[in-house]
């Protein structure tokens, strides 16, 4: 049996963790805003939302 300690892998610094969290929050906010935008435009356009002139 292999009783060695598992390798620690990549350990992020505090700065890297903080920046990753900031980026994750920004992506979440952007995607949330996109969902809200599509929802609001659906309300604005009503049934015509699927009619898109070229």
């Amino acid at each position: 049996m292999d009783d060695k300690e598992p390798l620690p892998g990549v350990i992020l610094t505090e700065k890297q963790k903080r920046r990753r969290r900031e980026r994750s929050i920004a992506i979440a906010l952007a995607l949330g805003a996109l969902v809200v935008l599509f929802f609001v435009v659906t309300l604005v356009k009503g049934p015509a939302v699927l009619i898109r002139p070229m």
Partner: protein
Amino acid sequence: MSIVENSSIDLAPAISEAGVADFFALLKPRVMSLVIFTALVGLVLAPGHMHPVLALTALLCISVGAGAAGALNMWYESDIDALMTRTVRRPIPQGRVAPREALAYGVVLSLFSVATLGILVNWLAGALLAFTIFFYVVIYTIGLKRRTAQNIVIGGAAGALPPVVAWAAATGTVAVEPILLFLIIFFWTPPHFWALALFRADDYARAGVPMLPVVAGPDATRLQILLYTVVLVAVAIAPWALGYFDAVYGAASLVLGAGMLWLAVEVYRHREGQPALSAARRLFGFSILYLFALFATLLAEVVISTLAALFVG
């Protein structure tokens, strides 16, 4: 010390330390602000009624698309950005953002902005935005910038398209008025960037970018600036002369055009030392004011006439 120990190859995984501000900087916010402004003018000049939510959606997509093109430009140009004083502080040359991050960011934003504009507003506007991004990244950045002194003349088309995209978003078609706006920005681009290149010629030469002052020399550039400024002023007055825009715009284009011409003549006359640099800087600064003021006049006229109609009607 062995050769291996002296190697600079770093096998550690690259963990990004890029912050949100770095990704915002990749969008070239100063360029984006001009895009938003010119697109806004294209939107408000367009005939008919556009729901404010759709207008905001179109503006958002156009500005994000422009920002995406900026990010892709910074991805491709990171090597020469590192050599120029004006661009060395950008996120990629500073090592804060990896080139592959900028590439992925630019591609994703391009796809999202074009798709959102197409789905929520109309596909003509979406296609024009896609063409704008393609033209800026592939034609200008990859194709022209490092090959020809005409880079910014042809590449200027990308920066001139936002009001056309905005008009298409509002009307579903393209007409003479947005093409006139396109022409104004198109002919404004060479004198603006060549004035910059006159006092940044060392930067461009160091990076190997064949800007006109580097390739043809400052005197040939001064002549080209003057000639393009004459064409610009005529093109900017033409919409009033042809009856597309009214007398207030006509007066503004005449007064501002006189200023541009005077400063272009000053650039042509002063060829040595500090007076030459100062003349180029003055023209560069005024050219920004010129374009902003022309478009602001059009915007103000529409806003004032709409408010007047509201209060009188």
